[in-house]
């Protein structure tokens, strides 16, 4: 199942991956081959099958809704690529 160049670029935008021209074409070929392979699943009739999201069903555990502060604030902020005081600085969010 061939996917188009436009689809590759659309998916890359959704995934927030900037793609150079050459890479888009290579990915289009590779993704088409992989999607061709996985289409074999269509041979199975799964109309009455319940999907599995987790193999070991444990239910949803509940906990009290209480704040538990993380002790080492500085260790968190120290990883910031760009920091201003206690904030993570980013490029402008609202574009022209």
């Amino acid at each position, binding site marked *: 199942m061939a996917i188009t160049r436009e689809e590759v670029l659309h998916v*890359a935008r959704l995934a927030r*991956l900037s793609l150079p021209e050459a890479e888009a074409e290579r990915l289009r070929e590779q993704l088409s081959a992989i999607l061709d*392979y*996985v289409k*074999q699943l269509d041979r199975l009739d*799964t109309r009455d099958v319940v999907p599995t*999201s987790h*193999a070991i069903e444990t239910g949803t555990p509940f906990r009290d809704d209480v704040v538990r502060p993380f002790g080492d604030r500085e260790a968190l902020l120290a*990883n910031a690529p760009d920091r201003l005081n206690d904030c993570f600085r980013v490029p402008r969010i609202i*574009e022209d």
Partner: protein
Amino acid sequence: MANVPVHEWTLLEAARMVREKKISSRELTGAILARIEALDPKVHAYITVLPEIAAAQAAACDEEQAKGTLRGPFHGVPVGLKDIFCTRGVRTTCGSRILHDFIPPYDACVTEKVLAAGAVVPGKHNMDEFAMGSSTETSFFGATRNPWDLSRIPGGSSGGTAAAVAAAMCFAGVGTDTGGSIRQPASLCGVVGVKPTYGRVSRYGMIAFASSLDQGGPIARTVADAAALLGVIAGYDRRDSTCVDIPVPDYLAAAERPVKGLRVGLPKEYYEGEGLSPEVRAAVEKALKALTDQGAVVVEVSLPHTSFALSTYYLIAPAEASSNLARYDGVRYGHRAEGASGLIEMMSRTRAEGFGDEVKRRIMIGTYALSAGYYDAFYGKAQKVRTLIRGDFTKAFEAADVLLTPTAPTPAFRLGEKTGDPLTMYLSDIYTIPCNLAGIPGISVPCGFSSEGLPIGAQLLSKSFREETLFTAAGAIERALPVRRVAPLEG
């Protein structure tokens, strides 16, 4: 044992020697660090070696022991960690450029447990980027080599851990397994690797790839060592909502039990494929004979949906990965692209620069499989087939206590041999992937060598939370087929 070089001791032997004060942790740790210094330039099993931290941990262990305290069962013994487990204050990269300078502010649950058991951590092991790969070649930090033949790959994604254990650059290690990433490299490096039942080991602080499949587990040179290490890292942790609260049995005792009467199932689909090397088949048949010679009985079983497992996995795992890896946006930690004019451009360029080809490919497949108009046809379909694959195992375990299969279709392949074709690379995990989809546990145990001297492993699978049965069967194979434990590498 007195004449054996210390690095060749098993994990349990080393722990006993420290406990009985036959060797100090400083000496033991020093021997391992010296071995890493001598051999790792060739093998490249470590992304980060921690000589100062390990030496300080060893010194602290010795001091505490002098005062009469032992931290736990591995007091003073070097145990390595795949670089996917967060280590507080120590760089944790997940094999990726995007985390090349990430210093976790907390320890993973596995890290806490290994340290609480008294282990010294000599370093962080190399891995395929974000655990996506079967050869450790996708690591941003360069490939690891197989200690049995340096022109070959060690398997992956926990290839660094398996290679480090096989080359005695640690006594054991903890890896992770999403589709075979512990068992396949263990098989290719001639060591024991365990993928526990989903929920047996906490995933807290273990960097996520595919959350419904990921599970941490031990890699060691003997079945008993792997059993002891699983006993340490298993158990309930409230910080992982999928971690299961049931008691941890005595795995070490299970490794000693007889196999008489054990029903060993041979899933016929695992032996029919064209890709299975005759040498691997012959070695696995020896493992089977070892079991039947000790009184196990053979039953033939069928897992009819086996041929659909790879497709199912290559939709579910990338879908979950595309969601998990959305967090790497260059805002709070990790790599950030320079000079972007807006936020979206910054994120898109950060991710393009920070992720390697295989990771990008899987993010793209996953994003496509989850995108509007395709969700039901791809992701939804795969989740339904996953139910069929689980059902196959449920049925097989009515007739059998344990299933015996090859771990990997071939011994270790050469570096670069499969990097050009993603689908061919994916086929290395054909026997290990169904286990993750079903959530059940599996082990790879060495069962022989190829004519070229490359290790071969046999895989055993059991019902959920029956790791004891795996250790019993693997122990019986190990006793009958003693194989060389440490790769013959010279410094």
